[in-house]
């Protein structure tokens, strides 16, 4: 892994953000809207339910953490799609850039942009709605790592899908977080789900995060094993997604699909 080519992918993202401030808007706008919307919903539920549950912590915290995971995936996919939209594949893949360097650059770009979203999220949710992630203690760091890892795995998977099925498959990629959210038990305990959905949920690292978050907020002691298992699962899924991406890339080189992404014809 060489630093300069990885840095080039990161630098390109920086140039794009600097050159068009409109690109930075989604990093702030959607996060802000989610915080405000769910903050007021949670405040309303707190005022009418009289239940022992702290809705602000459970709902708003869950929404924001899930949003973060989605932002990581979208950041990575968007950085990849830049090369689709600008028809840049031939310039990139006919260069000494290695696939591992390209994917690492995309991952780092995505982490950098989503950290900005995380900062905005905390800046709004903590003072305005009194949400305190500090209640989660040190396990918050573990939860964030799991969500980042899963977001990265989804982003690489989504990029592989676009590379395999062509630019039109972009529309398949964006709804992935929404499709997975019922299985990840973002807002409810896993026990609510039917057995078959629970089976799927166990393969999705965020479900352990949200179960752990609810347990911590209800005062139960931290159980490190499920969180560590989720972290391992996320790492495995990153490796699997990277393996898939490389396989799709190799197939695209073998069949000529990669050249066709840029060339008008294969003469």
């Amino acid at each position, binding site marked *: 892994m*060489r630093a*300069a*080519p990885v*840095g*080039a992918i990161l*630098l*390109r993202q920086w*140039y*794009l953000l600097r*050159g*068009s401030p409109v690109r930075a808007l989604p990093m702030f706008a959607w996060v802000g809207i989610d915080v405000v919307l769910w903050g007021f919903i949670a405040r309303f539920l707190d005022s009418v339910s009289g239940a022992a549950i702290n809705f602000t912590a459970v709902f708003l915290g869950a929404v924001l953490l899930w949003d973060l995971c989605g932002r990581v995936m979208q950041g990575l996919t968007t950085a990849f799609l*830049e090369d689709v939209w*600008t*028809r*840049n*594949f*031939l*310039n*990139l*893949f*006919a*260069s*000494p*850039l*290695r696939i591992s360097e390209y994917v690492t650059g995309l991952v780092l770009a995505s982490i950098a942009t989503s950290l900005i979203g995380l900062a905005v999220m905390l800046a709004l949710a903590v003072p305005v709605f009194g949400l305190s992630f500090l209640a989660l203690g040190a396990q918050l760091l573990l939860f964030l790592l799991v969500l980042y890892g899963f977001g990265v795995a989804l982003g690489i998977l989504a990029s592989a899908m676009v590379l395999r099925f062509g630019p039109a498959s972009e529309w398949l990629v964006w709804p992935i977080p929404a499709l997975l959210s019922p299985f990840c038990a973002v807002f409810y305990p896993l026990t609510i789900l039917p057995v078959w959905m629970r089976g799927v949920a166990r393969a999705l690292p965020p479900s352990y995060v949200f179960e752990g978050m609810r347990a911590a907020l209800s005062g139960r002691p931290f159980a490190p094993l499920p969180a560590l298992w989720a972290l391992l699962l996320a790492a495995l899924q990153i490796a699997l997604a990277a393996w898939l991406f490389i396989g799709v890339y190799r197939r695209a*080189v*073998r*069949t*000529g699909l*990669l*050249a066709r992404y*840029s*060339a*008008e*014809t*294969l*003469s």
Partner: protein
Amino acid sequence: MSAPREHPADSAAADALRVRDLRKSYGGLLAVDGVSFEVASGEIVGLLGPNGAGKTTIINTILAVLMPDSGSIHIGRVDVARQRALALARTNFAAVYASLPGNLTVAQNLRFFGLIYRVRALSGRIEELLRQFGLEALRDTKCGVLSSGELTRVALAKALLNRPRLLLLDEPTASLDPAAGRDVRGAIRALARATDCGVLWTSHNMYEVEEVCDRVLFLSHGRILLAGDPRSLPHLHGARNLEELFIQLAREPLTHPAEQLA
């Protein structure tokens, strides 16, 4: 019949590019059928042929964005199949269908690709190329708003960033006016002589090919039909000029490729 031109750097060790028995098919269609050729250091070779002859397929296999069914490609002594990154670090290309990202400026594009090619003293190299291609005034202009002629100059600047040992140019002057085209041809010829860079050049402009290429390869249906000096080849085959020979070959391929190369 014409044989490939003799030149001092014919030994395999000095070849910028060596292609051996290259084959590629798409489904049942044989796009490249056992093509072998070399480009010596400092030599400019024209790869000619009608649309669908296999030119872009050959270029894509050399650039490792398309895997051949069989055959070998060496850039210098480096096998593209085995050491892709090392081989491509010594290569660069410009093609009409591979424009640079329009949402980056000229200077940003050069820096982006300069980092990918790990160019040493990159800032100085960028300034040198901006001057060489008259792009200084456009350095902060986004490539998306450049004219096609300006884009070609930027693509050529990018193609020279890493001082390549092999340069692949797919119709590099297609979008240029005659004066700009002549300047580019002059620049590439000077580059090939000064740096010993081998150049593989495709073009449909036979006058340009005659002016710039040391040697040409006529390709049809994925095979090399003829190879030789573009200035003497037409007369050897009863054609008035290269364009007439091109049309003749495109319409009525010669009897058998092996006979023509014998």
